[in-house]
């Protein structure tokens, strides 16, 4: 299945915590492909897509970080007005909920690749493909 492994890490709201976490990942030679931070007053959840998900999991576990992996969908959203709306409409028509989404940091002309976390992956993939919307393969996502 063309899904991407996302790693979400629990980050307590303390000075230096995010720096500590990203330094840990950097020093292991792991590249962050994209990330998103959701936060409350007490804590944040850093969601990342990395080039080496399995190594990253091992690293986090060894260093006592709390994390969870989830399968997400990378969509090659057309980089023009209405591009993301079309994708969301297609998902909505399939009666699937989007939990959250965030954009990839890539530089491919004409594309605004975006990560979608949905509650029904298979239905979403089918719906998007039927509209001719292209999906990122894991290889593309990890090594853009």
């Amino acid at each position, binding site marked *: 299945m063309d899904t991407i492994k*996302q790693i979400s890490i629990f980050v307590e709201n303390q000075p230096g915590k995010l720096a500590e976490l990203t330094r840990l990942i950097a020093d292991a030679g792991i590249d962050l492909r994209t990330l998103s931070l959701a936060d409350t007053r007490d804590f944040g959840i850093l969601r990342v897509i990395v080039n080496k998900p399995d190594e990253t999991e091992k690293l986090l576990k060894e260093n006592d970080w709390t994390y*969870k992996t989830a399968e997400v969908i990378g969509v090659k959203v057309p980089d023009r007005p209405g591009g993301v709306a079309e994708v969301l409409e297609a998902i909505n028509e399939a009666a699937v909920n989007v939990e959250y989404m965030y954009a990839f940091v890539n530089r491919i002309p004409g594309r605004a690749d975006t990560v979608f*976390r949905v509650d029904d992956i298979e239905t979403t993939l089918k719906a998007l493909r039927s509209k001719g919307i292209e999906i990122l393969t894991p290889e593309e996502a990890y090594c853009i």
Partner: protein
Amino acid sequence: MAKYWHEDIETMSPEDMRKLQNERLVKQVHHVYENVPYYRDLMDKKGVKPDDIRSVDDLHKLPFLSKADLREAYPFGLLAKPLSDCVRIHSTSGTTGKRVVAFYTQHDIDLWEDCCARAITAAGGNEDDVVQIAYGYGLFTGGMGVHGGSHKVGCLTLPMSSGNTERQIQFMRDLGATILCCTPSYAAYLGESLHEMGLTPDDIKLKAGIFGAEPWTEEMRRSIEASLGIKAYDIFGLTEISGPGVAFECEEQSGMHINEDHFIPEIIDPETGEVLPEGTVGELVFTSITKEAFPLLRYRTRDLCVLSRKKCSCGRTLIKMAKPMGRSDDMMIIRGVNVFPSQIETVLIEQGYSPNYLIEVDRKNNTDTIDISVEMNPDQFSDKMKDVQDKEKALAAAMKTMLGINPKVHLVSPKTIARSEGKAVRVIDRRKLHD
């Protein structure tokens, strides 16, 4: 295999026990009155003479001793024997103020170790057992007391002291320890560490644990029993009275038998000092009737609990005390409500959280605030913000039901709350109510 260490005493009829206590009490009151000027003054002030105490029924006439008296009389003021007759001292951890020192003659050490031997035997221990003692050694009574009891029973004794968790587990495996003695929080930590090292209870030979020196809950007992594959027994004691073994649990696990041939318990109203009937919750008071060097009469423990003479299936007739509901020193009054850390622990375990928590109490704009940090295990985490927030809310709601006040709950990463190898620090009170 012996079921009791002192069968005659442990299964004595209540009438005979009362007779024994009467004799010993009368003798002890004379000993104290003659040798401890501090207590003689207290008795004189109350107008009580040694001859007024003819049986346990007269016990209520004697004045109380409190921790404040022990501090005032520090270091030698309550000593009832010449120092040349004493062979050892022990001291309290001093967590609630100035340290208290207690003195022991060889006779005092012997009776204390006998009490611990009763506890080890009640936990199924005999000369074939290997007892790993991970209580601190030194001034603290935990290590040395159980150590002496283990020798008496004839167990192979591993005097590990606390700390160095990896070595604890290595010795536990290599030497086939069958009984573990330590604080319940350290037992929980050892269980956690065992699993982290990729081991299961099948890799060790432990069958029982004797845990005390700090409050713990039934839920914590079940979690320790599962993680180490053992039966966990409670043990109670305090340095002022001797040390661990003042009371101990049997296989029924429903309260601790008090060694009442040495220590007479009473339950009093902490406000009025009035003696309360059996079955009523109140402050536990002990009178030591056999100790020579440091014989405290009517010592107020600050532990709140309840006594019961209900028949026990183990055959012991010694009166039982319920697990203390908290020390009155531990009790926090938050927004006018009495809160015990043990209540918070109960909620955490019921809701599937680890019993590692930190309570922070403060006062902002004349209102008390209570913040509880709780370690989340990786399975409880979710990449969805709403799931994590819902968990925090559910936990706060369960806390409110239990405590009657609304705490703020903060989920934190595993292992971020400091572990203890001795008594755990669970509460930080930043309110400056007194100087």
